[in-house]
């Protein structure tokens, strides 16, 4: 991968944005609070978007049903954590983790299993056709959401954060929620794993090639179909993980939560450029920061900050910050 010069400009966007707003915010402790909170938020967003970088970014499947896996992960977490109330109620972080980790693993497994079925029945007939993907995955989304209601009921369900993960850490005068710091760790792990898999193995290449010309990849002797299933399932599992993280952040889960984050994560991917993990990370960080800065400076505009950001980026680079050629 050393043959091509690495493009540093997009990476510089993040610190650039942070420095740019400093004079407007004035108080440096406020700025630190907002910046750290924003970056950590970005990491959470990255985790929930990471699955979609595989499914949409790499496989080019416009999966509107992706949100269902996020919701599913969160609902599974309510059940698992509910069953392990002793561990979550304890103030010890270690015990909390002993509950949260299994919740994550189980949520990922369940999401992966459902992902397998979703790929088979919903996505397989429509590879390569965006319009049909939109329709059929929308259908899948609605079905998934309704099934969640059938199983868990239509009510919002509280997902209390384990005792030891609550509260905040004071960095000087700036307060940062403890949970966000935890999310950063998860985010970094997911990012590292994805980056490694996609750049150090042929997997990423094969998927991209398969999207362009499935028949040719098969003619080269690869069972692209199996690969697609695998990647889709992995994407769903990551969405499940994202759901756990997001659910614990919100501390309540509703069946509609998947649909609520859908647009957000699509925006992150567009900013990042399809198929680029690093791009998605940058997109997520920018969105997280931007939300906090505009929320503080001009709360009215906070709503449109994502869209404005996306438009600005697309005017600069119409393919997103890291476009995979073309």
């Amino acid at each position: 991968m050393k043959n091509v010069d690495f493009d540093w400009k997009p990476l510089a966007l993040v610190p650039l944005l942070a420095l740019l707003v400093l004079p407007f915010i004035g108080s440096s402790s406020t700025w630190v609070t907002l910046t750290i909170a924003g970056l950590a938020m970005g990491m959470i967003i990255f985790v929930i978007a990471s699955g979609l970088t595989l499914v949409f970014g790499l496989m080019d499947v416009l999966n509107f049903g992706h949100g269902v896996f996020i919701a599913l992960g969160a609902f599974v977490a309510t059940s698992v954590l509910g069953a392990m109330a002793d561990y979550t109620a304890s103030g010890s972080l270690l015990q909390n983790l002993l509950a949260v980790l299994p919740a994550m693993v189980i949520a990922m497994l369940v999401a992966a299993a459902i992902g397998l079925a979703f790929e088979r029945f919903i996505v397989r007939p429509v590879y390569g056709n965006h319009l049909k993907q939109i329709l059929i995955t929308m259908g899948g989304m609605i079905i998934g959401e309704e099934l969640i209601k059938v199983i868990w009921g239509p009510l919002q369900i509280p997902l209390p954060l384990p005792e030891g993960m609550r509260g905040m850490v004071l960095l000087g005068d700036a307060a940062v929620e403890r949970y966000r710091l935890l999310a950063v760790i998860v985010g970094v792990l997911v990012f590292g794993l994805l980056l490694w898999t996609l750049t150090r193995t042929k997997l990423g290449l094969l998927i991209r090639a398969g999207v362009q010309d499935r028949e040719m990849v098969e003619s080269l002797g690869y069972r692209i179909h199996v690969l697609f299933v695998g990647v889709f399932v992995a994407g769903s599992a990551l969405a499940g993980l994202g759901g756990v993280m997001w659910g614990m952040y919100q501390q309540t889960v509703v069946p509609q939560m998947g649909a609520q984050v859908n647009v957000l994560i699509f925006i992150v991917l567009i900013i990042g450029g399809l198929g680029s993990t690093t791009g998605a990370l940058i997109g997520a960080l920018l969105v997280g920061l931007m939300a906090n800065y505009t929320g503080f400076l001009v709360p009215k505009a906070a709503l449109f900050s994502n869209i404005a950001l996306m438009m600005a980026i697309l005017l600069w680079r119409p393919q997103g910050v890291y476009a995979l050629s073309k």
Partner: protein
Amino acid sequence: MIARLLSNDFPRNRILAVLLLVVVVTLALTPFVIPGIKALNVAAKVLVFIVLVASFDLLLGYTGIVSFAHTMFFGIGAYGVAIAFTRLGPTWPALAAGVAAALALSFVLALAIGLFSLRVRAIFFSMITLAFAAAFQTLASQLSEITGGEDGLTFKVPSVLSPSHEFSSEPFLGVSLDGRLLTYYLLFVTALVLVLALLRIVNSPFGRVLQAIRENEFRAEAIGYRVVVYRTTSAILSALFATLAGAMLALWLRYNGPDTSLSFEIMLDVLLIVVIGGMGTIYGAVIGSGLFVVAQSYLQDLLRIASEATSGLPWLSALLSPDRWLLWLGLLFVLSVYYFPTGIVGKLRSMRAASKRPPAAGEPRHSPALK
């Protein structure tokens, strides 16, 4: 005569022709043959959706632009009428002013969208319109001074169109001749004219160029068509028709709010109808809207019956509960993509085509080797 009206674009399939006739005749006679307020409401909604979906078909089916912002124009039309009536009172000039202002706003926005669609790749464009539509909806609910916010606007229409206006105290064929009936026929005629106009547009030389651009933009440019101009014109036309559909809706409901005309759900319904009906056919919009709106309106009732019938099987009954009607709607999405990839119109037409087509490839060609 009929050929002129239909712009030489015949249904090209007997079943399809019969279906179309059934839809049109039913809509024309609904007030007299299907009693009840609900039926009339459903029929009016069908009329509105026919125009809305047909206008979207121009954009999606003929031009190949996937935009999620179509309901935005629908909403602009509805809000135009609603705001005008609220502000200016229930008069005809108010209606004209509302529609005109809405059309103007739609024109400007569609122009911007049409031009922008060329800058970014198609899939990004659709995601951007998605975000835009969401932002527009939020904006509409935030500008509560003008739009009534989340609560929307309830307003009065010119008195001849309002239900309390009776043209004769004697019911005609058991139907009271009131303003509501007049409104219904106003919608009916408007829808008919607008659909025929769309049919004409897609069958004009312009419409054919749109199809070419959809198939191969690069080559269309190379043989001398300026893609920007065509795309933008199409985006604008489709937006204007959607705006009119919105105006029809507001006139019928005498209410408008963000959920009623701007919600993403409507966008989904429109997408689904286009696909079920058959993209790039216009006729698909008519058949699809008829089927879908009726099915959607009575789905809950049907489910209630089904759920009661299966009350012995609790899990099935839970799935068939009318509260889970969306589940079945979702299933409809999935199945329609499975079984109607080219829509009802496409399917019917290909049935005929397949039976008529000569054995193109296998037939003997003169060949020196096989003397």
